[in-house]
């Protein structure tokens, strides 16, 4: 049995428990689920197309030379830069990260990419700026970049 099928079973189980406890809430949950699927599926497929493009046009050697272990700390910084500007929804981050890893990117680079892709977003900057101010936004994004770098280095040390 695939891991995904087990998750699906658990999800249906929880859904059943929820329905048993409160029908209306469960209907709302189902609506939310469909909305999430509707929002992320097309974006995911677009990211899969990007992965296909890399598969077709970029060699494993190229990815490994930029994001691989040999490039060390510099590879992590490149990965973080990609993550910072990438317009990825969080669910797309992991398939793409796993794909890069299979093609020679180091665990450290992937960690840097994952953190910045989720926590730094060019698209969310204006909102963050508006809600929390200039000082907060600049400081948070810089600290995220720097701290993610050290955590990625640590993960690389432990996992390689």
């Amino acid at each position, binding site marked *: 049995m695939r891991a995904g099928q087990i998750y699906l079973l658990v999800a249906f189980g929880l859904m059943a428990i929820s329905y048993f406890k409160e029908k209306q809430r469960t209907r709302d949950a189902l609506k939310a689920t469909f909305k999430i699927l509707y929002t992320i599926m097309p974006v995911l497929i677009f990211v899969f197309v990007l992965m296909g493009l890399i598969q077709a046009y970029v060699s494993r050697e190229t990815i490994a030379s930029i994001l691989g272990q040999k490039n060390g700390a510099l590879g992590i910084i490149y990965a973080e830069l990609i993550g910072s500007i990438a317009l990825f929804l969080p669910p797309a981050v992991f*398939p793409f990260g796993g*794909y890069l890893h299979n093609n020679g990117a180091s665990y450290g680079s992937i960690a840097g990419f994952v953190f910045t892709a989720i926590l730094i977003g060019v698209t969310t900057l204006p909102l963050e700026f508006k809600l929390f101010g200039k000082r907060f936004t600049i400081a948070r994004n810089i600290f995220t970049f720097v701290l993610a770098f050290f955590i990625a280095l640590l993960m690389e040390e432990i996992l390689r």
Partner: protein
Amino acid sequence: MSKIFKNDTFWFLFLGFVITLVVYILNAEKGMIVAKTVYSTFFEVLDIIVAVSIFIGLFQVWVKPQTIVKLLGKGSGIKGFILVCTFPILMGGSLFTVFPLLKALKEKGARTGAIASFITAWGGKAPLLPLETQFLGWPFALLRLSLVVLFAFVMGILMDWVVEKPVEANVNKR
């Protein structure tokens, strides 16, 4: 039909399709590589994505934003700080959905560091664990998830120090 075109996410699908088609016309072999990658990855994630979406949907209706704000309070004190560095790991959504919630926390008087810790901990993304382990393995996912707590902790301290302090200094001067 026009409603579909108004949807941003639809354009991603459309663009993806056009790119694949163009690549196929330029070079059939490379076009097939793209199509095969999309096909195999899609079916690799389908059941996981559906399961994850159900988890997040259920979480959203059973744990209301108001409950979270109440639970975390100002995020002050050791207990509040620990909560703010761990609890958001369980939440789904994108930055667009957490920022408004944090606005409410801030209005309740949460410290700058608590807000920053919350955002960082939210980056742990436990609801996406099924996806993360599928593509990057359990050691990577669990290590990342535990380090995110440390990440959030340091983040909160740094942000309080850099962003909050000058304001306090000004107040003291007056």
